[in-house]
């Protein structure tokens, strides 16, 4: 699915990613954990094509193509989706217009017909139901007046609507109460299939009870310093990050 090799990136002259290597196969869920400021969001943003981040080295092959050469919208049409840590409000643009435009651009890119109004509506109903969202939300402006939790849920709603190949979830669980967390996780689990993959960034083991990762990676100072299976997340929850930092220092 995606193969990240020695990826390095800068923001405002500062090196943030300092050689990331990661291989994700179809059907897999990878969790990325790590202390604040370690570069998790940066990695997600670089993969999605945010232009404030300057890639200074390495390469990323996504479904056989050079990802880093594409514009953000092209990446999305190729199948990358980023659920934002801080979703953005867009007054004046309804969720319906926003999603319809996005879906049809993606479909056109793949040589598919645009959805009819009826098909689109049916799709909305189906996906909104999974997330327990009210249909009326669809006529409201994108994220405007949504609570923090509603915004996160709306990100997952968009994920289900756009049905990408690779979902990058940046702290979709932060700030959610347990009920909302269950709903959002349920949405992600519905999305998961043997043909797509999920990279999720989180600080909390709790999410991983609901979305079970195949691999857990620890990102620290722009590098993946430890990888393991879901047991690693439990260990991190219990012991924090210091023991790994020390381990790294010892081997260095």
């Amino acid at each position, binding site marked *: 699915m995606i193969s990240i090799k020695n990826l390095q990136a800068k923001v405002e002259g500062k090196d943030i990613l300092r050689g990331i290597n990661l291989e994700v196969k179809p059907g897999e869920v990878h969790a990325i954990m790590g202390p604040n400021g370690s570069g998790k969001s940066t990695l997600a943003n670089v993969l999605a094509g945010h232009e404030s981040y300057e890639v200074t080295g390495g390469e990323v092959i996504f479904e056989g193509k050079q990802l880093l050469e594409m514009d953000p*919208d092209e990446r999305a049409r190729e199948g990358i989706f980023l659920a934002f840590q801080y979703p953005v409000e867009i007054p004046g643009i309804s969720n319906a217009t926003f999603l319809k435009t996005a879906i049809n651009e993606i479909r056109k890119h793949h040589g598919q017909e645009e959805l009819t109004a009826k098909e689109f509506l049916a799709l909305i109903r189906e996906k909104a139901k999974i997330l327990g969202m009210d249909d009326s939300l669809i006529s409201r402006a994108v994220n405007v007046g949504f609570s923090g939790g509603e915004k996160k849920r709306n990100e997952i709603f968009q994920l289900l609507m756009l049905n990408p190949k690779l979902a990058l979830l940046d702290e979709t669980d932060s700030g959610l109460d347990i009920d909302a967390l269950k709903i959002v996780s349920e949405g992600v689990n519905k999305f998961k299939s043997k043909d797509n993959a999920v990279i999720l960034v989180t600080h909390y083991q709790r999410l991983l009870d609901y979305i079970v990762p195949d691999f857990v990676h620890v990102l620290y100072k722009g590098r993946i310093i430890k990888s393991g299976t879901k047991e690693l997340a439990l260990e991190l929850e219990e012991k924090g990050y210091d023991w790994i930092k020390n381990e790294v220092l010892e081997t260095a």
Partner: protein
Amino acid sequence: MSKTEIQNIKDWYASQFSEYESKLNGQTKTFLHDLRKDALSKLNEMNFPTLKDEEWRYTNVSPILKHNFVHPLSVEKVEYTKEEISKYIFSGFDSHLVVIINGIFSEELSDIKNLPDGVVIGSLDKISRENPELIKNHFGKNIKLKNAFNFLNAAYSNDGLVLYVPNNKVLEKPIQVLYLNGNDNAEVLSVPRSFIYIGKSAEASVIANYRGMGKNPYLSNVINEFVIEQNAHLNYYKVQNESQNAYHIDLTDGYQNRDSVFNHLSLSFGGLIVRNDLASLLDDENIQTHYYGLYVGQQNQHIDNYTFVDHAKPNCESNELYKGILDDKARGVFTGRILVRQDAQKTNAYQSNKAVLLSEKTQVDTKPQLEIFADDVKCSHGAAIGRLDDVAYFYIRSRGVPEAIAKSMLIKAYASDVLDNVTIEEFKEQLNHMIFESLHRVEVE
């Protein structure tokens, strides 16, 4: 612009007056004609504004003064059919239609039906001859003519809209006034003068829709005067979409009585040089005044908005939001003057003006001007000039939406807090369409 050029243009308008007068026929016997002659002599005594005038320091009007515009009465009249003008009219909702061509009210093209008792929608010319008592006591008394353009209008205007809503009457349908300007045979001077009176506890909505036609430049130089009596409401939407080579100068000024509400929404799309002067005198208590503005400029357009809220009495509120969208080499100017007089305790006055620059070559000059002489007031103002929101741009594109559509979405998002004040949904959609049309960008819903 040299002194002689200014003198020349003044001489031009002075020399035209007797010919104009000769075409007025019965109109010279009305009270309006005394006002005209008075305005003409004032015009002779004053100069057109220059960059040296503080209120005009960012707006150079000299290109306007290089034209010898002629009054439409001196030009062969062009007739239009209802069909020809229909494309300029906002549709999809019920309205009374008034059509004013080059400043002259057209009975044939207007369509006014089933008015509540006592409500008058008519031509200034006709009313000044047939029923002057209706407006005489108020007309011209609530407006401060400020500059030579205003006096030029006052001297040369022979028609315009009169809207008179008596006490307690509510006009359900908005009045749509199409000011259609331009003439293929001449460079015309369009000088409509309109007067709006909203009686006690009465209510009305007006859409003033300025459109250009033909290839020739013209000067659309308008005056709108309003009186909003106690507890009355006036919603006034101005949509200015003059020809791209035309000039538009507007003075809208009036008086608000106790407990009244005035909502003014100004949308500017057209015109090469545009200057809007908007003022209200809040001369009693518990008055609300809302000014919303959106100006969209491209190519070489120059759009100058000058607003003035005069708080004269306590316990009133004014709220102002102006936003600009500028592309190419367009230039915007905003001055927001708020005067809170000594008597005007407990005033709330808010002002915000913003502009978004879509190209490197645009320019905006803004100047808040708060003059506060009362001590117990809440006033604030803010200005923000910048580019489209990067984060939102990335967010939209990260969903697969291509650049051009993503930008249009951001433009719509930017304009939305101004346009949200348009309560007629179909009208709002057409305004949205005009934004994209004038910026030559893909439209988004």
